[in-house]
């Protein structure tokens, strides 16, 4: 599985060759874009300086400066091996914090996820992404580890599932949803594609059951299973007996899971989801109109982005974003400012930057000789991807309103620090290898 080849390396192992400057460059660019757009989003007709420390742009400048210090620390001071060593302990401590915060935190719009220590506020859920990734990398890089072993698969599921449940208990469904992205890491490490397929099918069936009569979802499920079974039977002769039995078993399991989803959708939707989550899904699927309530955010967000046109209104020229029609605009809805002031071209550039960043991470991860670095890289890419898709999808009405930040762009120290640390641990791991091999 390992991509041992890679580029021929020169003998010079200095900074210039070992640090992936493309990643660093992408990172700096995104952080800068974020900062400018935060300034634009709070900018009113009487502009204050971008360095006004009482305003969010000024505060973000401080967060950026401190994040840069952290980055340097991680890159040059802390030995990258340390991360692998402390991974299990850090994971346990953070999990403990995740649970603790449920009981000691204040209620912020229904969620219990913030620690407040005087002026400092932080969200353990942000750190938990890092520790979970580290532990996953640590466990899955062991030579005796194999995903096809049921106990190992269960262990991995537990590592991902425990913090996810804790975060769900904090009423931070959005952050918990990000953990679903780890399934891509498992897929890369050998998990059967059937699981991805199952996940996709569950989502499709859930939506279908909500928007159409039950028999539509039922027929889709039946059709899928028949096609699957047909493919299995067609290849009957060439397959081993064990494999055949497993595949038929899986078909049945798929059908059972699908049927369960169809039957349980109503119950989950009405009894498990909270009111605001239900409303957000209803608005997204067009089942209900609620322009003043839940629909307001999305409508305003789409108006802001849509009014940007091809080239945007220009820096600080937005009317929707500078006058505060879009709620949560410097945090979760920062992409609106990009859309309004920089237009489609700006949006394209930002998304391209993210895609490039993720692609570059995957490339580096694949090239790595260390399984730990590779798995960690994939975890990082998966988290970035989930945040990117959910956040931007939400601002343009493709996803329900799920309050998670846009990595590196959104205002807020917790999120910026967490993604900086997470990314620079990877850059450090990557550099470590290039130094010694």
């Amino acid at each position: 599985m390992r991509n041992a080849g890679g580029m021929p390396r020169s003998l010079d192992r200095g900074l210039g060759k070992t640090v992936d400057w493309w990643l660093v460059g992408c990172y700096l660019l995104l952080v800068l874009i974020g900062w400018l757009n935060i300034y634009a989003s709070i900018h009113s007709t009487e502009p204050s300086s971008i360095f006004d420390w009482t305003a969010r742009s000024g505060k973000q400048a401080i967060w950026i400066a401190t994040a840069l210090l952290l980055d340097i620390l991680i890159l040059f001071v802390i030995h990258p091996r340390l991360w692998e060593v402390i991974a299990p302990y850090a994971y346990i401590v953070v999990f403990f914090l995740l649970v603790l915060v449920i009981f000691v935190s204040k209620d912020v719009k229904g969620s219990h996820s913030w620690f407040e220590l005087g002026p400092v506020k932080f969200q353990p859920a942000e750190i938990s992404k890092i520790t979970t990734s580290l532990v996953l990398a640590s466990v899955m890089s062991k030579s005796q580890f194999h995903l096809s072993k049921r106990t190992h698969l269960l262990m991995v599921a537990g590592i991902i599932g425990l913090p996810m449940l804790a975060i769900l208990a904090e009423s931070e469904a959005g952050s918990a949803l990000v953990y679903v992205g780890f399934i891509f890491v498992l897929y890369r490490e050998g998990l059967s594609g059937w699981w991805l397929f199952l996940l996709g099918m569950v989502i499709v069936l859930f939506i279908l059951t909500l928007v159409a009569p039950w028999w539509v979802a039922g027929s889709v499920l039946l059709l899928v299973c028949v096609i699957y079974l047909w493919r299995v039977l067609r290849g009957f002769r060439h397959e081993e007996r064990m494999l055949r039995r497993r595949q038929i078993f899986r078909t049945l399991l798929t059908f059972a899971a699908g049927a369960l989803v169809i039957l349980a959708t109503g119950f989950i939707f009405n009894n498990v989801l909270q009111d605001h989550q239900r409303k957000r899904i209803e608005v997204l699927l067009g089942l209900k109109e609620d322009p003043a309530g839940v629909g307001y955010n999305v409508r305003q967000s789409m108006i802001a982005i849509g009014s940007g046109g091809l080239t945007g209104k220009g820096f600080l020229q937005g009317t929707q974003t500078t006058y505060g029609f879009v709620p949560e605009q410097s945090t979760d809805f920062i992409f609106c400012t990009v859309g309004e002031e920089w237009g489609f071209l700006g949006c394209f550039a930002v998304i391209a930057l993210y895609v490039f960043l993720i692609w570059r991470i995957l490339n580096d991860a694949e090239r790595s000789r260390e399984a730990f670095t590779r798995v960690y890289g994939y975890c990082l890419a998966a988290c970035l991807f989930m945040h990117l898709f959910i956040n931007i999808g939400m601002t343009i009405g493709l996803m329900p309103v799920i309050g998670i930040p846009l990595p590196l762009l959104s205002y807020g120290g917790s999120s910026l620090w967490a993604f900086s640390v997470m990314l620079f641990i990877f850059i450090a791991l990557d550099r470590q290898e290039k130094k010694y091999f």
Partner: protein
Amino acid sequence: MEMNRKNRLVAGLLVVAGILLIRLFWIQVVDDKYKRDASNNSLVYNYIYPPRGVIYDRNGEILVDNEVCYDIVVTPRDVTPFDTLALSGALGVEADFIRERMAYYRQYRTRIGYQTLPFLKHIPQENYIRFAEEAYRFPGFKAEVRIVRQYPFNAGGNLLGYISEVDADYIKEHPGYRPGDYVGKTGLEAAMEEQLRGVKGYHIFLRDSRNRVQSPYMDGEEDKEAEPGSDVVSTIDARLQQYGQRLMEGKVGSVVAIEPSTGEILTMVSSPGIDVDVLSDIGRHYDEISKNPHKPMFNRTVMASYPPGSVFKLVNGLIGLQEGTLTPSSSYPCNHGFPYGNNRRLGCHNHASPLDLLSAIATSCNGYFCYVLRNILENKKYQTTAEAFDQWREYVLSFGFGRKLGSDFPSELGGNIPTSDYYNRMYGEGRWRFQTILSLSIGQGEIGATPLQIANLAAIMANRGYYYIPHIVKDSEGVEIDPKYKERQYTLVDTSHFHTAVKGMYMAVNGGGSAGGTAFSARIPGLDVCGKTGTAQNPHGKDNSVFICFAPKDDPKIAVAAYVENAGFGATWALPVASLMLEKYLKGEISPERQYLEDRLMKTRFF
């Protein structure tokens, strides 16, 4: 490229990024909707209301203009402790009044919330100035300048009409109006709404989502200044209008006066009417007005449909002459009425018999006009009564009855002239005859006419056969009336026949011929008054009293119709009203020998 798992994931990443970008392309570049919504979102229009046009009477008297008035409003939430005596001094009200109000606000503070409430209305200007100087001492109190309509001349609320804020239904039917706009609802204000209202101006500001205004949009380049409304000159003679109102005080009915040579309405009194004092603040009095059993809001001059009574005999006579079924010398007997089937008889009063057309008009003989209508409807020219009736109806409609005249005065109704279909439905086809509809001969039965239509008949008589559509607005600078008001509308009866009818009207007032006139007391020395009385049976009570007249006989200057409900003989009540109007208009004052008529009218009140 090899489709290993990494590349599959990268492919998935690109697909998702592609979906996001396609969606972005759609809402940012393809779909215009969001750009429109964005400008609605962030622009706020501060409207500037133009002053409404002034309404003048035909002699330049101001009937309606604008007045600046000052109100004090209060936002109880913003009030801080203040010197009650100082405020009472500044506003010129009792300190107790202020204490009372403040106690009330405190008691209902939760319900009031952040609302701003009226505190004092219509304070004098000197108090406003005193308050403005000291306003800083009374946070929460604010003076507001409003423009209200003012009526320097009491010319009648129904005629002038009122303005009020537009409601949701009105806005739906009239795009261009917004909540908070005022619109003329009745009378002249409604008739000339378009000219009077002017054009609203606006200043555009950018605002944020909490509706806080931030800065002018494009430095005011897109702003628009208000254009004041045009002034309107009415055809009304304010003094005559006022005089008519005084004569009609305490009586239910209408007086309409028209200048025959132009169709201009000189007077339009509907009694009881709305006093101009309540007009500018009609909302507050609405309840009281709508509970009044005499319905002062109901403009009788254009909306009431009365049987015209004997004045309609003129129309029947003219139709008979035109059809050739009647000649001026035709003579019919009348012994206290017209007998028809089963020993029944349409009654008549005491007069010489037999008599000719002139005397019949002058004495208003019922029997005579029954013969007139019989001859019209039983004309051999037509196959059936229904056919003859339809022809009769054509004639009647040409006199402006049974349809809207098309006046510029709003909410005009058309009265009613029945059709042959109506009688066919009622009695069956071919099963009704002249006897069935006998009462039409004397303007009773199914006929309904508005006072405006009856006055128009007086104008037709004065013009000998044509009229101008009665209208209420004159040409003036900036206002041009519809050319249709300057076109003669001919009746289907030749002018020559009118001379006979007018002669009868002259005799009714001034005597002569073989019979005594019914309208002697309408005679005014020096003015050749022509008139016709009417007493219309009223199924709901005492007879209605009607009188139409015009003068002078040659070159008439004014035609008047008066209609007094439940007042008995036409000669008793409607006649003096109409003839005094005539005299007032033509002579400027009432001659001493006729003063008793005025006195009697002013003293009499039926309610």
